């Protein structure tokens, strides 16, 4: 029976990737195997077999090393598919691994299926305008979009250790700084209130942040506020190149709704928007909208919420 591997250096993403691997394994009558590099993490659930790759100095914090270790193990075990969680490091692992193995690589899949010969996956392209279905014959590598699959939970199964020998590394990490906020916070948030260019001053973000708090949610922003103005850390940037979110409620405050922003929010259950421009594209992407000045509307919403809580 062919194996379907799942790997991610991030615990949360690893459990999501296991769910995708399980689904594909059922479809191709294979067996899902969790693969860990350089360490065993009990927090990474396993539906059955867990394979732990070990070597001197081997660590999954280096995508280069992880890719080489996975390659050395895959060369022997010949899994049908190696699923890698599509974090930024994970994409490097998947790319390198595909080249080393001479196999195709499917990027950022949000849904997978398989038959006995190939893997089929869906991904969002053209800033969310198009859903593209791709196929790749076995053996192949596939990156699973972060947040696309629910985390697998379950324990037990066998843990097999495998020595892969010495793996080289050509770049070294000289310093590591934890980011102020974590993208995980936004991904997990049930409610997100997000600020855009309609907010005129950095100080005014407090007002938007207060609304987020009153709604029991987190504060996010569109790209310019993080990347160009630096008012909020890059981790708060929601969109194609930032965090992709799917809260119960997404409230866009003073965001025009460029395609690349909408690409990051389109899976939200409910989208609402406040904008002065009635023709702003965000209203096309929203369930509910208010055409108006956010400096009047945000305090008004705040007032309604306060009065109802009494």
């Amino acid at each position, binding site marked *: 029976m062919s194996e379907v591997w799942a790997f991610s250096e991030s615990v949360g993403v690893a459990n999501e990737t296991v769910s995708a691997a399980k689904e594909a394994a059922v479809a191709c009558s294979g067996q899902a195997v969790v693969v860990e590099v350089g360490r065993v993490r009990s927090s990474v659930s396993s539906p059955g077999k867990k394979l732990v790759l070990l070597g001197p100095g081997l660590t999954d914090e280096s995508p280069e090393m992880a890719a080489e270790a996975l390659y050395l193990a895959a060369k022997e075990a010949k899994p049908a598919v190696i699923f890698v969680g599509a974090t930024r490091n994970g994409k490097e692992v998947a790319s390198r691994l595909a080249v080393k193995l001479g196999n195709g690589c499917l990027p950022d899949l949000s849904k997978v299926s398989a038959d006995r010969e190939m893997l089929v996956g869906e991904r969002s392209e053209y800033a969310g305008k198009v859903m593209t279905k791709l196929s790749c014959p076995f053996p192949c590598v596939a990156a699973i979009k972060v947040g696309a699959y629910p985390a697998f939970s379950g324990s037990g199964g066998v843990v097999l250790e495998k020595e892969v020998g010495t793996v080289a590394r050509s770049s070294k990490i000289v310093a590591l700084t934890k980011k102020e906020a974590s993208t995980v916070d936004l991904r997990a948030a049930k409610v997100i209130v997000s600020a855009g260019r309609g907010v005129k001053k950095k100080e005014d973000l407090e007002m938007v942040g207060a609304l987020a708090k009153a709604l029991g949610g987190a504060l996010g922003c569109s790209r310019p506020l993080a990347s160009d103005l630096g008012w909020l850390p890059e981790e708060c940037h929601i969109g194609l190149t930032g965090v992709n979110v799917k809260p119960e409620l997404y409230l866009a405050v003073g965001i025009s709704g460029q395609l690349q922003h909408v690409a990051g929010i389109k899976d939200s259950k409910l989208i609402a928007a406040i904008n002065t421009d009635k023709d702003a594209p965000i209203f096309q992407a929203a*369930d509910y909208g208010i055409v108006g000045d956010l400096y009047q509307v945000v305090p008004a919403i705040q007032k309604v919420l306060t009065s109802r809580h009494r």
Partner: protein
Amino acid sequence: MRFAVCVKHAVDESELKIDSSGKPQLEGALARMGTFDKNAVEEALRLRTALGGEVVAITVGKAEARKSLKEALAMGADRGVHVLADPGTLDPSRTSELLAAAITRTGPFDLVICSEGSSDTYTGLVPPMLAERLGIPYIGYVRKLEVAAQTVRAERSLEESLESVESSLPSAVSVVSEINEPRYPTLIQIMQASKKPVEELTRQQLGVGDVQASVRIVSMTAQAMNRKRVVFEGSPDEAASKLVDAFASEGVIPK
């Protein structure tokens, strides 16, 4: 120093039309240099200003892709390399193979710069694949870049952390858009770009085999935006009240 910067002739996603059967009209769609590729070109130009040398813009694509090379040349790249290939025959693996061959042929380069992904399909696979094929160190998702005589030091923007990484030259990097603000070429620069040399190369000239891409497109369908699109009227207070009512009845906030 010699800098190679990879750019893609990418369909402008905001101009992409969907036909009545729900299929995107990619044939004949407006295309230009990928949005994020401009940051890669800008970074190469910035490094050339600081360290001297040459910036070579490289693309893989059909004849029209020359337009994107011209955009890079107008921004200030010294010359272009155009690997002729039909995008329909490519996947990230094949593209990286052609890029690697073109870089090897027109090299040596001290630094290969890519963007984090193309603005159309945004796979982000080509840069690390390229580095793997070239057998040089790779630093992805760079938001700050310092290049010295023999080393590159970069700050990577990851999900949870900022990581400072060092490697030796030659290296390859991918940059995120927050790294810089791309310049706009002047009219004169745009006109002068046509006079800059562009070398055309074919797969055969590069000695790359005629292998079919393993990744195939099965189908492409427009993603429907099924939203209610209800706009609440009235004074800010009235509209706010209606909005909060809607949130409560949708069950996204407590009633």
